[in-house]
């Protein structure tokens, strides 16, 4: 089976090349380079999809659901698919700058965690998997886009507000309104997904261990994220927040989720969310 062994290297190389080409293309204002980079990313994405399907179709499919490699792989895949969706709906090619490196990072992390498996009991069902991991990952992918759009918004807004003048790079960027629309989308869809993901986790914890909260560090951070997310959701949808404040909030929330995902999973001893062998 040569292909599955080569696959990760191919995907990593494609994502890496795509990222580099996109950055160079943006710097040189070369549309052809950008298109080429998106093409590479698309090929990488299809191989990535194939990789996921391959993992699921194997004999030990049930086991791979809880494997660290599969989870990170899925997260990277989610980020890219969201980017492709945003690109299609909002014509936001610009977000490739965030989506491709993040997908690359997740995929590399995934492959660094080969052999690592979470200690979730095997009674984990497909439905629960979808409710907990799927929703959380989708909302994290959304947050990643919100993070990129937020950074871009803050940068462009500062240039316009301080009258610092727009360089060619900023002139090629989409408008402030577009970035704000991404933020709106992220908040609108991301928060319900995140809430669903957390709630399903608690329900499952109660069903399996008759205990809702286990003071797991990851759960604590997740609760903080949920609170911040809820605040952002409320302010954005009810109080009419727009522009800078929700952008800053989205960046903070995303960074916190990254901490909870990578930092806690790898560094802090945790009951069952960790990826320590």
């Amino acid at each position, binding site marked *: 089976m040569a292909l599955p062994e080569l696959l990760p290297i191919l995907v990593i190389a494609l994502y890496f090349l795509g990222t580099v080409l996109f950055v160079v293309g943006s710097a040189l204002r070369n549309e052809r380079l950008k298109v080429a980079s998106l093409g590479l990313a698309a090929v990488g994405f299809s191989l990535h999809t194939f990789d996921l399907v391959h993992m699921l179709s194997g004999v030990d499919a049930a086991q791979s659901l809880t494997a660290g490699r599969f989870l990170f792989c899925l997260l990277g895949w989610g980020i890219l698919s969201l980017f492709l969706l945003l690109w299609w709906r909002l014509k936001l090619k610009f977000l490739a700058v965030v989506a491709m490196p993040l997908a690359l990072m997740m995929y590399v992390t995934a492959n660094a965690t080969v052999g690592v498996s979470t200690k979730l009991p095997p009674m984990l069902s497909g439905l629960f998997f979808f409710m907990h991991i799927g929703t959380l990952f989708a909302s994290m992918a959304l947050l990643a886009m919100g993070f990129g759009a937020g950074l871009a918004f803050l940068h462009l807004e500062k240039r316009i507000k301080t009258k610092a*003048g727009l360089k060619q790079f900023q*002139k090629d960027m989409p408008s402030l309104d577009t970035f704000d629309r991404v933020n709106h989308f992220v908040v609108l869809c991301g928060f319900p997904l995140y809430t669903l993901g957390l709630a399903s986790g608690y329900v499952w914890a109660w069903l399996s261990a008759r205990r809702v909260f286990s003071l797991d560090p990851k759960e604590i951070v997740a609760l903080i994220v949920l609170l911040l997310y809820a605040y952002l959701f409320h302010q954005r949808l009810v109080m009419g927040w727009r522009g800078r404040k929700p952008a800053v909030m989205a960046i903070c929330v995303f960074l916190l989720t990254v901490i909870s995902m990578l930092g806690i999973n790898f560094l802090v001893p945790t009951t069952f969310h960790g990826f320590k062998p």
Partner: protein
Amino acid sequence: MDKTIFLVGLNHRCAGVDVREKFALTNVADFEKSLLAACPLREVMALSTCNRVEILVVADSDRCAGIDLPEAVLGHWAETCAGPLATLREHTYRHSSLDAVTHLFCVAASLDSMVMGEPQILGQLKSSYRKAVETGTARVIINRLLHKSFSVAKRVRTETAIASSAVSISYAAVELAKKIFGELSGKTAMLVGAGEMAELAATHLLASGIEKLYITNRTYSRAQELAKTMHGEAILFEGMVDQLRDVDIVISSTGSPTAIIRAKDIREVLKKRRNRAMFFIDIAVPRDIDPDVNALDNVYLYDIDDLKEVVEENMSARQGEAVKARAIVDVETQAFATWLKSLALQPTITDLLGRAEEVAGRELAKTLKRLGDVDDETRAALEVLVSSVSRKLLHEPICFLKRRTREEGTAERFIDMTRRIFNLDADAVIEDAHLDRRTVDDEESCGEILDCECCRDDSISSPDSVADKK
């Protein structure tokens, strides 16, 4: 037969408006014809706009040896315009041979324009060229030179950022608005007070797709008047702040000595409009809008000085791009010089035979490959066959060219034709390569009036789009 190319002209830099209007050519076609009759010239093309007059001339070197041609052209020009020759001599420039080519390329690429990078001049050049072709005063060399100048202009436009940013205040404001709101369709603007620049900015906003324009003025009748001409809606000055909740872009230019829009008003307005972004353009001096407004989230305020700065920055960016553009012009001038040299009998024959040999060689190789192993005799016979076919085929055209060369004045036309038929210069066919040939649908576009280079400052439609319709 060697050719002399030269160009005399005057522009906004070397001649004041009084001189320019005195020596503007009102009927270019007549001037071209009378100039051809008066001087021993081959080809003539003149361009006359309110910022410049350029007269491009091609002559045979040996026919006009001993005659000061530029002086003769100037004399005829002064006569046509009934002006003093001395004034003309003092205010004109003269370029000869490749300098003239470079100058023409620079003019076409708008490197010589008053506002560098504005495309109007190219449209004017195209229409002048078309007229010269119609009157029959533009032939082989001017044809080639002008087509080249159009492609140089296109290269400069696409390969440099010379025309990419706004260099007028009102355009800079529209550009900023697009950076904030994205598409302007569906947005609403308000004009507070009146003034030429504010009205201009409002016109540009309307042209960019603004949905509604409110107009307010201390004198309500003035607001109503403006509303009629700009298809806006007049509102009372007292109701202005209340109306702001529906307005995204505000252009203010009243003569009020104090601020009429204050930060605390806008804070209230923002609450009502749920923080949707607002863009304030304050053109008035003293300022109409409290500078603190800019400190509010989702509100952007630019006053006249800020906009001037944007424009100046864009201008200096254009200057930087001009260096790149000049490099393109230099390269293209050299290419033109090479072509000019090849426009003689001997180089054309060499090129023709070379092309034939190349094609024959290629086909021979293909055939030999298909045949597989062949003995040396067959191979030699095949080689002789293809080379003699190609040479014999070219024998008649070459003899024809030689005969034409002995006649006066027809050689370069046929040499040029031959080079084009066999595509010896390996030119790509550019989009306006057939500008000199009229088609049926052409008639209507000819009726349109081309804008003048200097009337540009803020016109939205670029007139060269007229010429591009071809």
